[in-house]
């Protein structure tokens, strides 16, 4: 087929019924402060890893809420757990624990 420079966009619909939101509920239980997130993106702005590669905690938090586990599993491994994000968070969310617990959850629920 001739390439006209256009293509059909991937379906970006979020289906909450089919998405697996267990991770979000797990995190809500072990680190309730996750509910405070307003998605301001300060964490991503300060991130140490963000200087090297595309790593965005702000995005990960969104994926966690939506239950898109595949994206999270690939991304969350990049974190160095330095803790800068939890220090700058204006809502005082323990982001470091969220990442730590997410990794643990994904590790034990492969």
């Amino acid at each position, binding site marked *: 087929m001739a390439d006209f420079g256009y293509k059909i966009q991937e379906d970006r619909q979020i289906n909450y019924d089919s998405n697996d939101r267990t991770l979000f509920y797990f995190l809500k239980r072990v680190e309730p402060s996750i509910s405070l997130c307003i998605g301001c993106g300060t964490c991503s702005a300060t991130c140490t890893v963000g200087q090297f590669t595309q790593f965005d905690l702000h995005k990960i938090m969104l994926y966690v809420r939506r239950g898109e586990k595949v994206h999270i599993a690939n991304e969350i491994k990049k974190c160095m*757990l330095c803790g800068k994000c939890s220090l700058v968070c204006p809502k005082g969310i*323990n982001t470091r624990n969220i990442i730590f617990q997410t990794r643990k959850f994904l590790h034990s629920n492969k």
Partner: protein
Amino acid sequence: MSYNPFVLPFSIGLVIVIILILWKYFRWVFSHEKAEQKKIVKLIFSFKIFSVIKEIFMEVLLHRRIFKINPVLGYMHSSFAFGWFLLILGGTVESKLHSHHAFNMFYEPIFFKFFSHNINGFPFANGFKFLMDLILLYILSGLVLAMVKRLYKRMFGMKKTTKLRLVDKLALTSLWCIFPLRLLAESLTSAQYHNGGFLTDNFGNILAAILPVNQLEYPAWWAYSIALGVFFVMLPYSRYMHIPTEMVLIILRKAGFKTEKKYTGFSRVEVQSCSRCGVCLDACQVYSATQRNKMLPAYFLQSVRFNKKGKQGLTDCLMCGRCQEVCPVGIGVNAIRRVKRNEVFDEKGAEFEYLKDSDSKTKKADVIYFAGCMTHLTPTIKKSMVNLFQKADVNYWFMDEDASVCCGRPLQVLGKEKDANILADKNRELINNSGATLLVTSCPICYKIFKEEYNLNIKIQHHTEYLNELVNSGKLKPVNLNFSAVYHDPCDLGRGSGIYSQPRELLSKISITNKLENEKEMALCCGSSLANLPAGFDDKELMAIKAAEELCKSNPDYLITACPLCKKTFVQACNERKIGKNVKVKDIAEMLAEAVM
């Protein structure tokens, strides 16, 4: 040979406890490798053994360190340990002199008064009578204090005491029964045969006036023997295991044993040396701020000892090391906690592939400056450092100016050793390629891991050490700004790395430093330590406020620290809660930069 069936509970208990303890000793020592076992043999046949014996005498029997913490508490502990030791020693000598044999049955000294009604006619007979009663009185006075302590712990300088397990309670009860029962049994015997000293004889006479002593005497000796037997059987399973373990701990420690990366036999000795005395409870800031108690060393070591699975106690700790400083036994809780965190959490979870493609370049320089992640959050510190480097005309390279690779300690303290090593390798490569002879860092967290784990062959300094040297050598000439300041010791720099004098020396040149209530080894943690994972914002704020309040008691102009994380925490605590009248929180480098202007 004298024998009576009532000695059986004591004898059986003693045999059981000796077998169990020897088995434990055997397991501890033989779980180590041959080379390490040789260290023990070497120690025993060297002159060092005298210092070991001295330490055992001072700590295990006299409890010198507990005396230092609180004299009444020390008296209580030593009355049991040293008193009981003297009672056994005195009884043995007395019974041997009496029987004119070097060897008699092992229970005879314990039940001497029952078997020997006529105790005159050997050297110092009356002296022994007096002495043995005096020792018993010494122990009983300690027992009274122990009972009072259950009700009025503040008298002993303790706000909180440990909660006991059932086994501990049983062992405690039998221990408390032993000495009153001995007094009773000896008094009842003395009432009939007058073989007691000033205490038992008089007490026996009083009892004789109101009780049928000849009927009660035999049951009393049975009860005394049973109390001893029960205590012995409980001992290896209770907190009282610390009695036979602490000696081993002192010997092994002197022989150079340490808990490092693995949970070894020595770690086991450390864990079982904990008597759960509770001295560490008041030192813990997480406990006093949040009232959560699972991570307290006393309970944490208990859960390790009995293999209780529970992660709360493992992760909910700042690893600030205050508890280690006050521990009268000197147990290295932080090392044990780290080993246990490694066991639980060290699965490979991270993927740092992106670091390989990163184009972080090495620059040739004499001095490397590594600011650290946290310093990038407090940019005035790194600006001051750069300023000072330029003033002192140093050929330096700001290693993590643009893109910083974390030093790895935040991962390491959570037990993710493997992940931390990947980061360490990357940094090590950069450092080694620069050809520098000195690495200066602004962050005590990085400083500690550089020093302990990186195995770099260049000098590593925290900026307090480095700046102090620059000032001493005349490369920087600060003026005295004459403000009043308090210096806060960051955990990883003070307790963690033993750097106390350099920042104080440096600060004394530019300011007047106020004394603090908790300084140096006992300095408070700011509460933001990366070692504590579950503590949230509120918990950390509580700890920070408490620490800030104490630091600002003397109303200083400046609160000076040497750690970007402490600085950030205290800025928040002091400004938002209006602690201290207009106190300004600064890093020591910022202050020096101002003074050098």
